[in-house]
């Protein structure tokens, strides 16, 4: 019994290490010597050259932009819900956001193709596939979870605070702005970082909506590929090629991002990441 427990614990806990080692093993040949530069900026001898730099920039663009949108949406939404709290429908609204958070990413991405892209095309011309399109859809993907997280952290604020604010002549707006938000600033930060983590790790939305182009994007209307879509597009490549190996470098970067996010959240003292 004990040996079975020990075995399964070791197996499960070492998966992370296993993943890291695999990624390192496959990407090491590329990181040595002059390979490093080629891996990052590209410049192979083939007709297409693959650096991970465009993908890295693309990931930054899309995850930052979508986190920004999502922060706007979820901050105002959870404040709005807070000001309506106590009313009968807030419970209903919350289970509504819970259901939204369960909608598969690939479904959001598909809806982006049929509902958003035609409008983007009409507005900005071009294919409609861009950092902006992906970010808009991605922000809708991550907002419900952020809203639920913010709501939960708001719900543990002592009720007396509101009474005191009202007794001093304040109203709901002043309570939210002057007490609630400063009091829960840390949760807001943690929730936003978690949103960013989800955005940077998402594959399907960028794959289906960002255009996957190889150029380093300069404007949000440019197409882009992310580290995740770089993997999705090239995993079936020739196993010995530099392009194929570069996806492991992409994986390695993604994993480092994950680890640093976890470390920073841990440092902030909030243990709950989900």
């Amino acid at each position: 019994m004990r040996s079975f427990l020990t075995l399964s614990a070791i197996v499960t806990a070492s998966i992370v290490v296993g993943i890291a080692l695999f990624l390192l093993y496959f990407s090491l040949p590329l990181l040595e010597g002059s390979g490093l530069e080629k891996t990052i900026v590209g410049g192979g001898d083939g007709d297409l050259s693959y650096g991970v730099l465009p993908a890295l920039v693309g990931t930054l663009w899309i995850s930052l932009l979508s986190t920004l949108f999502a922060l706007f949406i979820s901050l105002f939404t959870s404040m709005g819900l807070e000001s309506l709290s106590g009313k009968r429908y807030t419970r209903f609204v919350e289970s509504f956001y819970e259901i939204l958070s369960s909608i598969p990413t690939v479904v959001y991405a598909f809806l982006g193709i049929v509902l958003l892209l035609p409008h983007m095309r009409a507005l900005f011309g071009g294919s409609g596939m861009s950092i902006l399109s992906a970010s808009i859809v991605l922000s809708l993907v991550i907002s419900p979870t952020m809203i639920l997280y913010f709501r939960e952290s708001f719900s543990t604020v002592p009720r007396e605070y509101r009474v005191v604010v009202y007794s001093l002549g304040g109203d709901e707006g002043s309570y939210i702005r002057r007490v609630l938000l400063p009091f829960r600033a840390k949760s807001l930060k943690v929730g936003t970082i978690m949103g960013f983590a989800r955005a940077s790790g998402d594959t399907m939305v960028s794959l289906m909506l960002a255009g996957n182009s190889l150029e380093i994007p300069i404007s949000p209307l440019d197409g882009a590929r992310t580290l995740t879509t770089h993997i999705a597009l090239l995993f079936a490549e020739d196993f010995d090629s530099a392009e194929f190996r570069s996806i492991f470098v992409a994986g390695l970067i993604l994993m480092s991002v994950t680890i640093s996010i976890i470390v920073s959240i841990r440092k902030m003292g909030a243990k709950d990441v989900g």
Partner: protein
Amino acid sequence: MSGDRLLLHISRVVVVAITAIYLSILFHIIIKGIDAIVSLGVSDITPAIWGSLTLVLLSVTMAIPLGVSSAIYMELYGSPKIVEIFDISFEILASIPSIVIGLFGFATLIALHRYIPSFRASLLLASISLCILVLPYIVKATRLGFSETPSDHKAVAYSLGATKEDVLFRIMLPSARGQIKKGIFLAIARSAEDTAVIMLTGAVASYGFVDGLLSPFEALPFYIYYTSAVYSDPGELLSIYEAALILICLSAIFIRLSSGISRGGAK
């Protein structure tokens, strides 16, 4: 004061606007999806439905014993240092992008295939990879359940001559049942919706019904991804809505179940 009021008004407007956007998205899918079910029937996507169900069943069945016993190990034998290391590694595992886990599965495939030629991208490989994806949810839920066990109950059990193992299996495990169930439902919802993992480990666009662990398979999320890139007629487009509606229902039911238990079950 007026700044405070303005903030309040803006946030109420945002609530209404965002809720309206989400509602219209949801209605769009529901209406088109029902239209699809009525006009197409489900025969085209039946293999994908069965594929998804099998996949979820397999991966969660693998994840439950592994996850629960890891949590038990941490509770029973783990020194504080070990527990902390395990905690961090599960936290990282829970946040790794799913495509990286898919890549891990794919790399394992390449490495293993040299030695075991019959091991190829398949239902088995995809289930194992998805199991890795959902394992942290099970571990986390089980540990939460353990930590919520009333300490009185543990003290009584000890006073009656129970060993650490007795207390765990007779008191803590039964009391963690609610949380474990919640974790399982969450794992089901997660493994049903994930596309990135199965895309690298064995999902194909057309295969037919699942017929073996070592065979490729169809699955709903991959069907949605693949078909939305290549559909060539309105019927095919409509079938995507059908798959999406079914997938949403599946995820929503299990997410609801998982949070329902946590609300009702926490004594």
